[in-house]
């Protein structure tokens, strides 16, 4: 029986990944305390666009996770209220020239073997899908499985859907890990006192490395900054997630230097969101007009009408980046009772449900729905 300071599991982090871990753990019958030093979705979740993408992922463990998540988001959309703004709108990746088109064709052919449905759209049919798209593009690929949610509300409603088994402690920073004499987890220390549980899930996102350090283990999560530009509300002028072929290369790159490739999408509320920049500059929140200028120029190249539309604000966030671009998911062999669910880079909203399900299975010693070894939290140990 959980008491005020005791539950089966503690989840550190009330972002979308922590919320999904709490939801699936609660559904498995466990009591969960979610602790966050800030509010729900106060970190990277709240600074995201809510991408649920398979289109940008090459065949491999991350794509498997994304495909599982795509199914789970579809189930969750039936269960959670419409406020999460789930839209199975599909993605459209466009190329400006024949070389880009060939690269997209090869990429899509590889993905199809893994279960991704991609349809080649010749240049003369692009406007059927996106009437405002710039003329003169070489063509594109339509990915029907790509979708979108409003990330902050999705996190909040996942937590609520966990019901009585999920307890929230917000504005309370975790300052230490409590262990037994044999080194097993028995809870956490926070600024408000001790909270007890046999399992602690590190879902602290970009700050997951700090939480790992509290447990005396190394997890090399680094921040990769991104800006989003928000336009004034518009009618539904952009129907899909539309992005240029370069985006895939930028996502896969490990470079610290600034990369920008426009990802343009409409939202249920009206504004069009324009991402995506990537740069490793630590936790520097300084507004970069250079980044915004590049995003605006690239978005306008895709959708010329945007030149006559106002951008009303911008926001920045820090993607939790791990050196091999895969998240850390599952039990940490170095600390019994500690699990990690962080390091999802720019795909945390998309990958959250599958991550939550994997964590819940690990907690209840059930069969994982897919091979978890590529996500092993200890995989960076050998390199140190």
């Amino acid at each position, binding site marked *: 029986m959980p008491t005020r300071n005791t539950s089966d599991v503690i989840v550190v982090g009330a972002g979308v990944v922590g919320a999904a871990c709490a939801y699936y753990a609660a559904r498995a019958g466990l009591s969960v305390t979610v602790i966050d030093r800030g509010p729900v979705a106060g970190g990277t979740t709240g600074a995201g666009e809510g991408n649920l993408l398979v289109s940008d992922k090459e065949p491999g463990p991350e794509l498997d996770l994304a495909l599982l998540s795509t199914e789970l988001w579809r189930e969750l959309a039936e269960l959670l209220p419409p406020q999460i703004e789930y839209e199975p709108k599909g993605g459209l990746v466009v190329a400006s020239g024949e070389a880009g088109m060939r690269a997209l064709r090869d990429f899509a052919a590889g993905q199809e073997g893994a279960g991704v449905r991609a349809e080649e759209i010749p240049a003369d049919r692009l406007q059927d899908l996106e009437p405002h798209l710039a003329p003169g593009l070489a063509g594109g690929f339509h990915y029907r499985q790509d979708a979108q949610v409003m990330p902050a509300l999705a996190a909040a409603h996942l937590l609520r859907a966990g019901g009585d088994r999920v307890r929230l402690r917000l504005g309370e920073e975790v300052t230490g890990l409590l262990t037994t004499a044999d080194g097993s987890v028995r809870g956490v220390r926070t600024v408000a006192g001790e909270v007890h549980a046999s399992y602690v899930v590190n879902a602290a996102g970009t700050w997951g490395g700090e939480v790992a350090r509290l447990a005396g283990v190394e997890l090399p999560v680094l921040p990769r900054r991104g800006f989003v530009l928000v336009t004034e509300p*518009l009618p*539904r002028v952009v129907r899909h997630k539309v992005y240029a072929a370069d985006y895939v290369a930028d996502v896969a790159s490990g470079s610290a230097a600034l990369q920008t490739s426009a990802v343009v999408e409409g939202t249920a509320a009206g504004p069009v969101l324009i991402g995506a920049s990537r740069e490793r500059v630590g936790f520097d929140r300084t507004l970069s007009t250079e980044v915004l200028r590049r995003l605006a120029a690239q978005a306008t190249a895709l959708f010329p009408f945007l030149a006559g539309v106002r951008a009303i604000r911008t926001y920045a966030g820090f993607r939790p980046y791990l050196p091999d671009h895969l998240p850390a998911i599952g039990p940490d062999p170095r600390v019994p009772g500690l699990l990690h669910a962080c390091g999802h880079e720019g795909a945390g909203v998309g990958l959250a449900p599958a991550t939550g399900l994997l964590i819940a299975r690990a907690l209840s010693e059930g069969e994982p729905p897919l091979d978890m070894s590529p996500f092993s939290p200890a995989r960076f140990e050998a390199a140190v």
Partner: protein
Amino acid sequence: MARTPAELVGANPGSSFEITMDGRPVTALPGQSVAAALWSAGILAWRTTRNTGRPRGAFCGIGQCYDCLATINGEPNRRACLVPARPGDAITTQEGHGHARLSV
């Protein structure tokens, strides 16, 4: 005795000029915002909301709330409380997002 805001602060503005609201002439003073000119003419609403079409005008009056959006000289979503009125400005009631011509 009724006193005007201009009298209260001892303002001595230059000559008034004309702007239009949906084609109807409205008198404005130099330095007045579009919202202030419309209010002075007794016009309190110049936009309808996106979803339910309810009337909107100036609320905060200092550029923060975006309630006072208007189409000014054909450009939608201008904050009427911040845009200074200029001779000949044509203000039109903004329906919703004001970008209907982008709809397809």
